[in-house]
């Protein structure tokens, strides 16, 4: 049973042999001699003569630079971005979580003549050790206080340290993903370079118009 099948197959493998590799190098990428020279800010010839040891290292492929993985804006990473100012302690997120791993304790706060009664958030813990990053809590949050984050290198040695408290959430760098938050989709947001410091930047849904407010709060009551 000898035919053309095998040679044709070898043509395919040969084609693939010479096409550029698609492998993503992570967490470090090899840069080679020219890359190393560029990193050092010299031209390759000068680099070769002034630092022979480093050049040899780069030549055999030991010179590396850390690299960020390409990820899309909606990527659900292993962290959360939380804006406490916006959270009303409504606990929708906790009720919506399939695993029940969000703990919220709230106490009655101040009573404002205009805004009415409000609640103060005492405890907001997420056990991300058990979280499956499904994003349902983010979907449930009516006030855009909770967002998925884009980072994923979050491994720890003990499970206790995976319980994220309100303070840790507030202190963490805010790199929200656009999962269920279309307002982040408009501006192209690079999760590796940009950090949202001010919560006003994070965008809200559009402010309701005066007509809408009247219909909702006056006419329908």
């Amino acid at each position, binding site marked *: *049973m*000898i*035919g*053309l*099948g*095998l040679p*044709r*197959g070898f*043509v*395919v*493998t040969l084609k*693939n042999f010479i096409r550029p590799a*698609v492998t993503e190098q992570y967490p470090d990428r090899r840069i080679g001699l020219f890359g190393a020279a560029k990193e050092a800010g010299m031209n390759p010839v000068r680099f070769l003569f002034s630092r022979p040891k480093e050049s040899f290292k780069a030549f055999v492929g030991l010179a590396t630079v850390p690299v960020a993985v390409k*990820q*899309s*804006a*909606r*990527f*659900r990473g292993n962290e959360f971005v939380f804006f406490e100012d916006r959270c009303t302690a409504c606990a929708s997120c906790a009720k*919506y979580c*399939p695993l029940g791993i969000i703990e919220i304790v709230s106490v009655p706060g101040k009573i404002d003549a205009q805004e009415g009664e409000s609640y103060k958030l005492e405890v907001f813990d997420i056990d991300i050790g058990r979280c*499956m*990053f*499904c*994003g*349902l809590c983010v*979907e*449930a949050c009516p006030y855009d206080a909770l967002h*998925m984050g884009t980072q994923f290198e979050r491994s720890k040695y003990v499970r206790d340290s995976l319980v994220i408290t309100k303070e840790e959430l507030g202190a963490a760098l805010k790199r929200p*993903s*656009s*999962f*269920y938050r*279309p307002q982040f*989709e408009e501006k192209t947001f690079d999760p590796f370079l940009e950090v949202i410091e001010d919560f006003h930047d994070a965008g809200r849904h559009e402010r309701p118009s005066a007509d809408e407010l009247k219909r909702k709060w006056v006419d329908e009551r």
Partner: protein
Amino acid sequence: MAIKTQPVTVNLGPQHPSTHGVFRMRVMFDGEEIVDVEPVFGYLHRGSEKLAEERTYTQVVTLTDRMDYVSSMLNNHAYMLAVEKLAGIEPSPRGVWLRMIASELQRIASHLVATGFLLQDLGALGTPLIYAMRERENILDLFEMLCGARITNSYLRPGGVFMDAPDEFWPALKRSLVDILNTIDELETYLSGNEIVFSRTKGTAVLPPELLINASITGPMLRASGVDWDLRHRNPYDYYDKVQFNRILHTASDNYARYWVRVQEMRESLKIIHQCVEQIEPGPVRPSFDEIPRLIRPPVGDAYVAIEGSKGELGFYLVSDGGISPYRMHVRASSLINLTLLRDMLIGGLFGDLFVTFGSVDLNMGEVDR
């Protein structure tokens, strides 16, 4: 003949690299020939059906992702159709088109994995598998754009999908479709005419169509025996009646036929995606929360919906008692039912064909054990 020979029993698995998961077979050999096979499974049982009884209808989506983890989008799809039927929800057109595109992409990804691993089991270590995986990676990137996750998608919601596709999705989809077609062509030149593949797969593990029908086998395995049974044709759900595609049939019903049917079905899926992209129109991707609240309480009753999954008929049976979570959920797992003919396929065959046959069934242990 005074001296008697004895068959030897060998335990294959549960941690055998060729069993595609934690699956164990107790095989009795008489030399090279297989005398008896006893499949043992349940190592990956997580009780998903029971867990569903204490989650709300939307939360159960996350469980369906983890059943057949090579085709989670199709599981989401089947489950959501069952919820919609149970609660009488009218889906939004754009959401339906989007989930059809996602499902067909997932079918290609799943068939690529099946083809790659079949060849891996044949002894083609690496090369075809890597080609297939490279293309699957493309599809997973598309899923990441759509829903932010690659495997555990949870993309579908009652009445559609949770979010519209981002702008960069459409050009990326267009590029990927070309790439996928090239890879299928490549696989075909590489394998479909390959003499070694022929001699190893043709005429092995032949199953008569009557036996397949009696054992209620579905999917590519059934179509490889010449029985025209594709739920997308027979019982069109969603908008499958608005797209045209060919029925892929082969009559040999051997391992090669199963491989061939899968490869051709990928081409048909590409056609379906092209037609979906042409027909998709702007609009909401899911009904608003005024129409369908977050917490659905379907009326008392039950619903069964089956779709054409990547491995066969994938059905979800839901019973509601009027509460916020299903009273009972049952999954008709195609992998489990396709497994039932393993004995008939293997007995009388040779040891060398065991894993090839096993690979041609395209099992997923996450779905078998749930």
